[in-house]
């Protein structure tokens, strides 16, 4: 499995965000995207999650350009990708129902209807994978709690479990820890590494250089309307090719 953005151009109206951006992720690696606020990290992740088609260039899944295949095929590709947003964006339901959501949409309408009706009469048959995913983020005990009653950190961990539960090939994380305290951050970073060990490819957008250093195998630096540098974490941080990278990392370059 490889998910790639190849020479992607994208703009919102007249506002150009990318002019030729390429990035790839393979199983079992964590790729961090760093860059100043507003540079387009979220936009890149949304393109990789197949929300919108890029203006130009291609998003390619295993050599298959996803915007040139049928809707059904593209849905299958989408379903191999998981995503966590900057805010948890949980559904107004129990923690377990949130974690199960991805599994439910993959079921037949019959099964889903039966499940909904079962839920109405209080008969809940939890799916193993959702419970396991909650276990990974340490929230198994809270499964029956209302999602709205969780703390911000717990909610973000549930959002991670929700994306993990259906065992995606790729996880796209958009600044998942930017609002979290160190303890919740640590739990999520451990979960990311556990996902990598399960051969999931992870792309994480982050402001936090240290986080990138801690968990990423490779780092891409997004600046202006392009990725100015991409390479193994250690090399990018220790010995950047582009001078702007060095300035950005050291904090000299303020945007």
């Amino acid at each position: 499995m490889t998910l790639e953005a190849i020479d992607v151009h994208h703009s919102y109206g007249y506002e150009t965000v990318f002019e030729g951006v390429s990035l790839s992720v393979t199983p079992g690696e964590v790729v961090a995207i760093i860059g100043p606020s507003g540079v387009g990290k979220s936009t890149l992740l949304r393109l990789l999650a197949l929300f919108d088609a890029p203006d130009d260039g291609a998003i390619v899944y295993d050599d298959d350009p996803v915007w040139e295949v049928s809707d059904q095929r593209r849905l299958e590709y989408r379903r191999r990708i998981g995503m966590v947003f900057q805010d948890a964006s949980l559904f107004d339901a129990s923690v377990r129902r949130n974690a199960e959501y991805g599994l439910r949409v993959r079921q037949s309408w019959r099964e889903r209807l039966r499940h909904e009706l079962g839920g109405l009469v209080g008969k809940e048959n939890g799916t193993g994978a959702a419970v396991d995913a909650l276990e990974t983020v340490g929230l198994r005990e809270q499964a029956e709690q209302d999602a709205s009653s969780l703390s911000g950190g717990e909610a973000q961990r549930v959002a991670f479990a929700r994306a993990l539960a259906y065992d995606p090939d790729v996880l796209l994380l958009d600044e998942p820890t930017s609002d979290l305290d160190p303890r919740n951050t640590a739990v999520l970073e451990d979960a990311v590494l556990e996902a990598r060990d399960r051969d999931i490819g992870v792309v994480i957008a982050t402001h936090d250089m240290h986080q990138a250093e801690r968990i990423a195998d490779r780092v891409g630096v997004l600046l202006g309307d392009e990725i100015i540098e991409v390479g193994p974490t250690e090399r990018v941080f220790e010995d950047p090719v582009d001078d702007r990278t060095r300035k950005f990392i050291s904090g000299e370059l303020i945007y």
Partner: protein
Amino acid sequence: MSLEQQMLTALVVDFPFEWNYIRSIVRVSLYVSLTAVALSTLLSLPVALLVGFKEFRGKTLLTSIINTGMGFPSVVVGLVVLFAVSNQGPLGSFDLVFTTEAMILSQIVLAAPVITGVSLAAVSSVEQNVRDAAYAMGGTNLDVALVTIKEARYGIATAVLAGFGRAISEVGSVLIVGGNIASSDGTSVTRTITTAIQLEARQGRFETAMILGAILVVLVLLVNAIVVRLGSGGGRYG
């Protein structure tokens, strides 16, 4: 005897004879209004989602139709529906004049804009993030719509109840298209609580009118109580 005593006696004495009549009227009323509201809801939710989240030509027009429709006078709706279902009208061949089906039709016209308008406000307040999450988890557009409806459920329930309140308490259109018919054995054919109240009051049978009025008021109060509860429950979402 005081007035209350008189009324009480009238109730107790007349009640067994009136009971079948009243029950059949309440049944027709509920059948017509519940069916109309159920069908309106099925019609309204897709429209609310469409207007709430899609850009298309004529959207402004549709929105103003919905807004105008929320306050449409029921007699006017009755006249328009009568014109449509009359033997001379476009739906004439279905022979719907003076039937519960025609009443359902006119109540759909009355309730659907209310349900659409209130639902629109409810679904519009569902955060884009949550919809995005449903899509990102592998949901189809239909799944996203379902999630939106679920998230807006309190608001939509309020909308449905508001529509029901409007349908069950309107008198103009059901009178015109339904004809307020009761069979000769005293059971309702197209007579609803509201049209019966009007008739009974006109004929001076105030006791029966009062019982029906009380039933209607209880029904409407009940609906309002639920709306208020749901309204405050909806604010809990976060």
